[in-house]
C-alpha cells in the first residue's frame, strides 16, 4: 500500500508569510507525528495526534506553530509569520498505535521549508 505522503516537497517563502504543510498518513494508522530536522537541532518532536486529538503538543516551538488533523487522516501543520529559524525539513510519520511494537513509525519524505 501507499506510504506516508507529504506536500509540498519543497517550500520557499518570505519571512513573515504563513505556510501550510500537509501530511497523508498510511491508511488505518491512528497515530500521526510531526518532527522537524535542522542542522543545529537534529531531529525534534513537534506534536502527535491520536485520532483527531493532539494529547502532546510539547514540541511546538512557539504559538506561531499549530496543527490539526481531520477525519483521523490528513494533518496540516501551519506556521504563521515564518521566521528564518523555521527553515528545516518537516517530517511526518504515522503508526498503527502508540504502545509497544505498534508504534513503529513510518516516515514521509518530508517538506523542506526555506524562509528567506
Amino acid at each position, binding site marked *: 500500500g501507499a506510504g506516508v505522503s507529504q506536500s509540498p516537497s519543497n517550500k520557499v517563502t518570505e519571512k513573515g508569510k504563513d505556510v501550510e504543510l500537509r501530511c497523508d498518513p498510511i491508511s488505518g494508522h491512528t*497515530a500521526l507525528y510531526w518532527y522537524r*530536522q535542522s542542522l543545529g537541532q537534529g531531529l525534534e*518532536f513537534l506534536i*502527535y495526534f*491520536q485520532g483527531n486529538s493532539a494529547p*502532546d503538543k510539547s514540541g511546538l516551538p512557539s504559538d506561531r506553530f499549530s496543527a490539526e488533523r481531520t477525519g483521523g487522516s490528513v494533518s496540516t501543520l501551519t506556521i504563521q509569520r515564518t521566521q528564518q529559524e523555521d527553515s528545516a525539513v518537516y*517530517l511526518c510519520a504515522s503508526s498503527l498505535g502508540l*504502545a509497544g511494537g505498534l*508504534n513503529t513509525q513510518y516516515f514521509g519524505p518530508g517538506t523542506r521549508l526555506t524562509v528567506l
Partner: protein
Amino acid sequence: SQQGEEDPQALSIQEGENATMNCSYKTSINNLQWYRQNSGRGLVHLILIRSNEREKHSGRLRVTLDTSKKSSSLLITASRAADTASYFCATDAYYNQGGKLIFGQGTELSVKP
C-alpha cells in the same frame, strides 16, 4: 534535548566490512528503534527492539540492547555501497505518553566500493 547520543559520528569503511554503530540514552524506555536516512530526507525504519529483548536480527542487521547500561548497538554485516546513509537510534521513553520518539544525533556511514 536529545535523549540519545551516537558513536561514532562518522564511520568510513570498505565494502564487505562490518559496520558497528552505538547509541546511548538517558531514561528508561519502552523500546528503541533504528532508522536510516538517505540524503537528508525521509527516514526508513530498520528495526525495533523492545526493552525486554536483548538481541534482534533482520537480514544483515543485528541490534543489541543493554538496558542496564542504557545502550544499544547496530551491526551491519557485509556492508555494501548502498548502505551509505545516516543511521539514527530513537527511543520511546518510558515516561512518555503517545510513543513520541527522541532521536540521537546520528552516525554518518560511508561505504566505499
